[in-house]
């Protein structure tokens, strides 16, 4: 049987609170400050633990039945791909530098989200990538004095 969504949410919340609560035991105490660094986190974590249990129980009891009808189609594969491309971008950013990494990211994600079918679309994709990268670079670095990452591999 699949876990109800709320039960899963509650169990995850409970696991997080218990784990962090256990970690508070390792926090240093001070004899001259009566309220230690563990005081407030413990209150919060105890509250989260209790609420998590409540949510989990609500899930099991199934108080909120799903309405009948077809569930809307979900495009989870595309979400996963987007996360993947974004993760690669963030990982490559310090290596390739802002300009190269951003150009590659903009090209890749546009292609993933809506694969170009003809030459015109490819041109649009390329233009968007080049123009966005250039405008972002010049606007931030030259005009707004916001520094962007340089690549440690490329020095660019």
């Amino acid at each position, binding site marked *: 049987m699949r876990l109800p969504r709320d039960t899963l*949410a509650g169990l995850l919340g409970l696991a997080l609170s218990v784990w962090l609560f256990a970690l508070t035991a390792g926090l240093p105490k001070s004899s001259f400050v009566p309220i230690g*660094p563990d005081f407030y986190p413990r209150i919060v974590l105890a509250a989260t633990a209790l609420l*998590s249990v409540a949510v989990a129980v609500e899930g099991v009891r199934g108080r*909120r039945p799903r309405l009948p009808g077809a569930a809307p189609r979900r*495009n989870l594969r595309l979400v996963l791909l987007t996360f993947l491309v974004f993760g690669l971008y963030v990982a490559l*950013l310090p290596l390739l530098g802002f300009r190269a990494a951003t150009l590659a*990211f*903009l090209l890749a994600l546009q292609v993933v989200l809506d694969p170009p079918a003809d030459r015109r679309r490819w041109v649009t994709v390329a233009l968007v990538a080049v123009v966005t990268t250039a405008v972002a670079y010049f*606007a931030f670095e030259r005009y707004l004095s916001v520094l962007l990452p340089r690549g440690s591999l490329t020095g660019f």
Partner: protein
Amino acid sequence: MLALLADGILDVLQLKYLVPLAAGTLIGVVGGAMPGITITMTVIMVLPFTFGLEPLQGLAAMIGVYVGGESGGLITATLLGIPGKPSSISTMFDGFPMTRKGEPGRAVWLGVWASFFGGLLGGVFLIGATGWLAEIALEFGPWEFFALFIFALSMVAGLTEESLAKGLLAGALGLIITIFGADPIMSVPRFTMGSELLRGGFPFLPVLIGIFAFAQIMTDIERARSLAESDASARDLVSLAVSHVKVVGEILGRPFLLLWSTFIGLLIGVLPAIGGSAASVMAYDQAKKLSRHPERFGTGTPEGIIASEASNNANVGGSLVTIMAFGIPGDAVTAVMLGAMTIHGIQSGPLFMSQETTLAYGIFAAYLLAHPIMLAIMAVGARWFLRIVLVPKSILIPVVLVLCVVGAYALNNTMDSVWVLALFGVIGYGLVKLGFPLAPLILGLILGDQIEVNLVRALMTDSDPALFVTRPISALLLALSAGSIALALWQRRRQRRRQPAADGAPDVDF
């Protein structure tokens, strides 16, 4: 006060402030008009551009986005029947039927003028009430602040569509994010897991941007049938010509409706973390209940448009009051503004009005001036914005993500913030998938540090915890918190008896 306001207006009329304000308003209108881009997203995108600016320039740009965004949504809502953002949904109820009846100009301009008047009336309240409320807030001790924050959290949790326990848990999860890093008294690092990155805790803005941007974008991607789609009807330019005297007359001829909707918008705005969509839906509902012809609602009645638009613009004024008087963001947009102020070293809170008077009146002035600018932008470009809306999501999403990364990176020029952004992007999407409402979570995240500081300060001042319930204001606020939770429980019980709740999509806007 009027002299200070006049100074503020003259200040903001200088080109160096007027340009960011006008640019922000324009971007806000466009962002508000684009379906799937909320005002919060727009303000997140504008954020990195403000780092290099003076504080008032940056804040003016953000206020422009806020005001422009609340109005921009009505273009697509009335002309295409696609709400550009959640708070335009109730504008669509009557705006779109009116367009269908062959009066697109009347529909759009009723909305624009109602936004204008609602927003300006909200401005009167903003200017009048902020100083007064800040004086009250100055009397607050740590007990009262603690109780106020608890009240805010309990109310937001109670308002969520999901179960009450889940709303409260979402708020508590927001608090958990803030217990990482140094404790407020002795700066002992907590829960660092041996990582240097976590010694200072999670930086607020990257967390906010990560949760928000990804919860929104990934949900869009998941639901989209095609990311290349665009609405064919948007390609025809319609004429929006209309007699402005007549439209203004229609609005001002219903003074009670206008004032009541404005009041609702302000009230919702002042209450933390409940956004414009709640304001406009509630004002629409009220207008319908109080109308002599409730049956006309939904068929293209002007009252529906006026109520919805006046309230969502007044809501902006209300949110600004909360942030300026108490230092508590009324919603995610003002939370980003608060973050931007912190970057410039400006402390918001009850002392803000007296310590940063010039800036405070500059903010008032920017808010007031944003309205005529919005009006001018609409007059020139309303029908052209329909074209911009045609930009497909497959282009929009990558560009938005790049701006999120720049925003996080530029906060303190380290990749650390970008890692945090990515981490909370995944967490944010996971939370949406698990059905957590985001509004209480974000509020918990915003208030967490303050709750801890005030709780500890209260107990260090006097170890007697009974003070929380014996000091009158604190006791009242805590009683209201308990009351709002009890009310929420009662309402849900009643609803459940009537109908089983739909397993709806979680609301990612607030």
